């Protein structure tokens, strides 16, 4: 197993390398002159030339890549063109809201999706099944920001339940923090619950057709014990795996949600960076999110081995 562990961890390195190449290539191989893009629409040729030499864009591509990779390795993501601050500092400042949102969303998503999946499997092929599963797909079919505005309209504006926008840092009190995160987490949770609900339903159906479930049922076990203790516990491996996948997918949704709810997180940072064409920031956010994605997938794979003793490598 330790051999597998080592191999699996090593296997992430080439992926991270490719990510770095892709992120580098997006800016440097794109049609159009990056220096002209950075300098802006109204820059004179001289200003463009200044930008080019300042950022080292006049040097050969492989040299630029080597320099960039070297500074990456030492934890330097460059300096923001817009605010002149190190990208790493900008990212660190924006970390808390994004991590908070991701965690609360994961909780909301699981609390919504797993019961839906269990109920759908329990009442498979009835109208209850169809209704809850269509509801789950509906959440996935609406753009995230439309879900957000529907919730804002329904819960925040009409009844004044929750704040419409903004974020309260954790150090200012858990109450305000949680209150500000309800709508954003619900938005993301509703958008991504379909995936988990489906897998929950599928793996529950699989387990419910097994002999030991029939035995348990004939012993006279109630639906609660039967579904939760016997079935769900054994259906857990694919469900836990897909929760990991869901969290990885969430990262993209975070960008949109932060933008709608004016949450000062990393997603908001990157959206602002696009509008100001602040490439070092865009590159930094891409690298961070991809790194998190790769690590999450690694954890999911390792979880598989831990959770299911039948899997051996």
């Amino acid at each position, binding site marked *: 197993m330790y051999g597998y562990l080592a191999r699996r961890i090593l296997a992430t390195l*080439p992926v991270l390398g490719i990510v770095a190449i892709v992120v580098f290539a*997006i800016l440097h191989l794109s049609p159009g002159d990056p220096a002209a893009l950075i300098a802006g629409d109204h820059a004179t040729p001289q200003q463009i030339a200044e930008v080019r030499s300042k950022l080292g864009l006049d040097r050969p591509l492989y040299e630029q890549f080597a320099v960039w990779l070297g500074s990456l390795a030492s934890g330097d993501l460059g300096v923001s063109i817009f605010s002149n601050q190190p990208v790493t500092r900008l990212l660190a400042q924006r970390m808390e809201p994004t991590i908070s949102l991701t965690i609360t969303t994961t909780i909301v998503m699981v609390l919504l999706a797993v019961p839906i999946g269990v109920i759908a499997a329990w009442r498979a092929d009835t109208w209850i099944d169809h209704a809850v599963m269509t509801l789950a797909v509906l959440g996935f079919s609406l753009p*995230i920001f*439309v879900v957000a505005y529907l919730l804002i309209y329904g819960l925040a504006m009409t009844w004044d339940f929750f704040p419409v926008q903004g974020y309260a840092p954790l150090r200012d009190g858990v109450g305000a923090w949680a209150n500000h995160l309800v709508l954003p987490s619900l938005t993301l949770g509703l958008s991504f619950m379909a995936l988990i609900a489906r897998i929950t339903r599928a793996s529950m159906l699989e387990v419910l057709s097994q002999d030991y479930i029939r035995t348990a049922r004939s012993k006279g076990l109630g639906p609660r014990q039967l579904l939760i203790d016997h079935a769900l516990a054994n259906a857990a491996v694919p469900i836990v795996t897909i929760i990991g996948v869901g969290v990885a997918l969430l990262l*993209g949704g975070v960008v949109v949600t932060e933008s709608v709810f004016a949450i000062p997180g990393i997603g908001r940072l990157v959206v602002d960076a696009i*509008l100001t064409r602040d490439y070092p920031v865009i590159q930094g956010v891409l690298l961070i999110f991809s790194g998190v994605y790769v690590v999450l997938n690694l954890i999911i794979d390792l979880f598989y081995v831990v959770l299911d003793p039948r899997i051996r490598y």
Partner: protein
Amino acid sequence: MTDALQQVPLAGQAGVLSPPQRGLLRRYPMVVLGALVFAVILLITLAAPWLASQDPQEIDPIARLRPPSAEHLLGTDALGRDVWSRTIYGGRISLMVGLVVGLLASALGLTIGLVSGYSRVADAIVMRVMDGLMSIPAILLAIALMSVTRASIFTVIIAITVVEIPRVVRLVRSVVLTLREQTYVEAAVIAGTRPARIVFKHILPNTLAPLIVQTTYICAAAMLVESILSFLGAGTPPEVPSWGNIMAEGRTFFQIAPWLILSPGLLLGATVLAVNLVGDGLRGALDPRIARRM
């Protein structure tokens, strides 16, 4: 999300007998419903010149932010433009992006996937690149690609296609790898059939069923991504009335004029839901073994 869904059921063992011949509607109610809804929305957008109550770009400074009424079916926006007319014209952009990206990503992904599944040398390189591309969250990758080009419908299509291709490649490759081990392919190899002929005659046809399902999902995803890109200001140029742009313009006025976001938003949702239903239904129709479990 779709490839995660497709990977799991492979372990399934349930062999289900093909359903008895019944009417299309009774056998696949969701496919028919989805296709019907999609067809209606497609027709409405195609018939936009006749259905629109006025020019989608016509500005009327006096009738700004009017709520839905008989004159303006879905109200007016901040410039007094008719939201109904803009919405049905905007649907053309969104649907076109969805369909073109679906076809383009499938065609390119199929080609790369076939080569990758059949050549070990290409496979090692191609799959690492795909892994790398898939490690970047889809929306972020599309945003980054858009940030380095001048915004146009064409660049939006290219950006979303690049994001979606790896999902197709993975799917096609996994099918090819399974097929390569099949006895009939081995037999063809032993019989001296040329590799190109094996790929086109024996392998390609069997990848089409899952590919068609995947294409519907890509089409749905592409429409969502387009709207999100436009909404964030990194998509279709603002002067084009795509659904995403209409919603982006409505953002500031949401509290007083929610119809600006809700009408294109719900129509987009209905379209994407319809396409997803067709995809789910097709998956069931083309692979009954999975259908039972999904």
